[in-house]
């Protein structure tokens, strides 16, 4: 049965790709989601026994960064199309391509989307939201989703168009450049956020006197810290958290610990 996929099928895959993680489970993770995303293509290409076999092979374990699963969907759709039209592509090849791509793509996608894009947009939006302005949530929601939808769309389309060509393009240096480049950007912004988007105020009075001009001079812990290195307290707190997280401490426990420090500090007058 020689059939080809058209734009409508690819749009259908794109729409379904937005629900990839819906049935995430601890056994095969995104497997059902991947199969359901590919179903429009499979239904068109195969009938009967062949259709059942194609469904089965796409219910195999699958897990990657959800937005970057889309090029894998595109490539797989292109390969299934060739297979249905008589090109000799084995099941092992198909699953090899999927497994081979999901690791590297997660490696690129996690620092870009979860490490850089979302925290930066969320911090920007949250900062505006603290003033009570609707612009905060709107900026976060609209910008993030515009980039996400574009990624999903071009992922499916480009993946299908390029097919297996993309596989060879993806290994090697380009992926490394992309990962490290986005990590550079993400870390630089994180450094800025540690300094800018944290508030620590230590009004603990260390000395108080009236100088020769009759001015009342108050030196607090905060004024001393600010004259040495502003932002040093949140910086040290960040390093402490990184250390504890690396030791495997549950982040919620760290948050509770910081709350305890805040309450205790407020109670004894260290923080305000």
């Amino acid at each position: 049965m020689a059939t080809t996929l058209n734009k409508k099928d690819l749009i259908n895959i794109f729409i379904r790709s937005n629900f990839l993680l819906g049935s995430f489970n601890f056994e095969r993770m995104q497997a059902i989601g991947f199969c359901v995303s590919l179903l429009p293509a499979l239904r068109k290409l195969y009938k009967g026994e062949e259709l059942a076999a194609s469904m089965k092979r796409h219910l195999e374990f699958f897990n990657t960064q959800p937005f970057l699963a889309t090029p894998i969907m595109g490539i797989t759709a292109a390969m299934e199309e060739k297979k249905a039209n008589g090109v000799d592509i084995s099941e092992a090849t198909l699953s090899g391509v999927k497994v081979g791509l999901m690791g590297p793509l997660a490696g690129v996608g996690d620092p870009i989307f979860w490490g850089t894009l979302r925290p930066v947009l969320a911090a920007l939006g949250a900062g505006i939201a603290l003033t009570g302005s609707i612009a905060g949530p709107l900026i976060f929601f609209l910008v993030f989703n515009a980039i996400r939808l574009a990624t999903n769309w071009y992922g499916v389309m480009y993946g299908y168009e390029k097919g297996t060509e993309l596989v060879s393009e993806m290994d090697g240096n380009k992926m490394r450049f992309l990962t490290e480049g986005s990590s550079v950007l993400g870390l630089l912004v994180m450094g800025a956020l540690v300094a800018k988007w944290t508030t620590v105020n230590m009004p603990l009075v260390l000395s108080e006197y009236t100088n020769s001009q009759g001015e009342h001079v108050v030196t607090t812990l905060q004024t001393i810290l600010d004259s040495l290195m502003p932002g040093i307290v949140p910086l040290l707190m960040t390093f402490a958290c990184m250390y504890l997280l690396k030791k495997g401490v549950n982040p919620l426990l760290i948050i509770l610990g910081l709350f305890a420090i805040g309450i205790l500090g407020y109670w004894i007058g260290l923080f305000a």
Partner: protein
Amino acid sequence: MTSLQFILLIVVAAIAGMGSVLDECQFHRPLVACTLVGLVLGDVTTGIILGGTLEMLALGWMNVGAAMAPDAALASVISAILVIVGHQSIGAGIALAVPLAAAGQVLTIFVRTITVFFQHLADKFAAKGNGFGIEMCHLGGLLLQALRVAVPAAAVAAVAGTDTVSAMLDSIPEVITRGLQVSGGFIVVVGYAMVINMMNAKSLMPYFFLGFLVAVFTNVNLIGFGAIGLICAYFHIKGLQRDIAAQNAGPAAGGSTGNALDDIDDSDLM
């Protein structure tokens, strides 16, 4: 609360629950979920401010690989209901959010385990070539995630305005709520630490310090930092290309490989 508000609230909670597993549209993030709850309950400003506060708290909560983050969906929806309907402070909202996030995490792990059943059901449908059945298994998992937030939210919304609940929340001493608000100023460091650890790139830490120092001593805004970051990334990649070219060239081959690499279109890399 009118019955229309009650129904809309459950819809928002269900969408947030689905968002927490899908992780696509970000309806489960406090910034979005709290705003929507505020919109439904007629106090959008409180919803936005609580959302911004909790977003800082949850900045580093992300699902990477198989690891489960604390659950922002349940925490956002229920603390927003209690703060807005029960007339509580933002500090009380923070106090409620953390245990709720832990409870939500347990619930989502539970649901993701139950969904293994749908996985095996899907195998049976696949053997018969029944695509519709597989689609229903997919939907089943998604609906369970919607329910796990919608049901607790409905239960809380039903009792939120009552005197008993208000009395309970009012009994939280001021030193706790004020102290929590103070902690709210720096609790975000946990999120920063999670993000930095996830990048797992010790050799790139100088860029982190550069960002920190520029932020401390200048007034550059976030857009400016984005631009500086892009320039740094450009030069970092240039350096990497040179290193790789030098490695490939080895002692014998000389500079020809370097030229070939320079031909790579840099615009692809950004």
